[in-house]
């Protein structure tokens, strides 16, 4: 008799646990999470640009030339400055492409195009920066490029796509 009284309670407990399990697996506001990661991607690329600019100190009238005396000592020649910025142009273009795709993204859609290309560019920046002499500014560029790689992976994860 007692077990018959508690039967609905057991049923409710099992049902509630099942509901909680389903809820934990269910779609969360993925696009909103993706927005935060996308903002982090932008911050990482911007940070690479800022750190490189700080190290190079290009003049407004000659933006392809580094005026800093430290830059050549660390291996940041004008050619490398130009090379890094050409990669940054690609990175920003891809970021814009991803952002445009993200705006139209809906649950169930694949990951926005451009993420794998962005990873490639981030790795290229990392390679160029890693070849420079170890210095606080150089480490900042490297750390930002690494953070960029991490956030690109996080964007895909936040959307729940492979």
């Amino acid at each position, binding site marked *: 008799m007692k077990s018959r009284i508690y039967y609905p309670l057991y049923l409710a407990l099992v049902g509630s646990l099942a509901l909680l399990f389903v809820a934990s697996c269910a779609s969360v506001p993925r696009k909103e999470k993706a927005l935060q990661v996308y903002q982090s991607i*932008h911050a990482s690329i911007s940070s690479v640009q800022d750190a490189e600019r700080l190290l190079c100190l290009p003049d407004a009238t000659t933006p392809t030339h580094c005026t800093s005396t430290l830059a050549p000592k660390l291996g940041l020649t004008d050619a490398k400055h130009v090379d890094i910025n050409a990669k940054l142009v690609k990175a920003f273009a891809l970021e814009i492409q991803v952002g445009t795709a993200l705006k139209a993204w809906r649950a169930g859609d694949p990951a926005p195009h451009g993420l794998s290309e962005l990873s490639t560019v981030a790795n290229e920046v990392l390679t160029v920066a890693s070849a420079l002499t170890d210095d606080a500014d150089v480490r900042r560029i490297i750390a930002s490029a690494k953070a960029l790689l991490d956030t690109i992976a996080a964007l895909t994860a936040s959307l729940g796509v492979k």
Partner: protein
Amino acid sequence: MDKAAAAAQAAVLLINVVGVAVSTVRAMFKTSGLTDEQINAAIDAVIADAQTRMADAKRAAGLD
């Protein structure tokens, strides 16, 4: 404990358990309040800054 008291206790427990489950599920589905339009506007703001920075990078790369 008589039958009626046990049944009442079971009913109260049941209501509490279901209440907690429902609250948890609602919390899981709750967003910070951003609508799709607001999310897209935030993405647009990021894109606008990226365009400005890309123009700077183009100049530094001698591509402008």
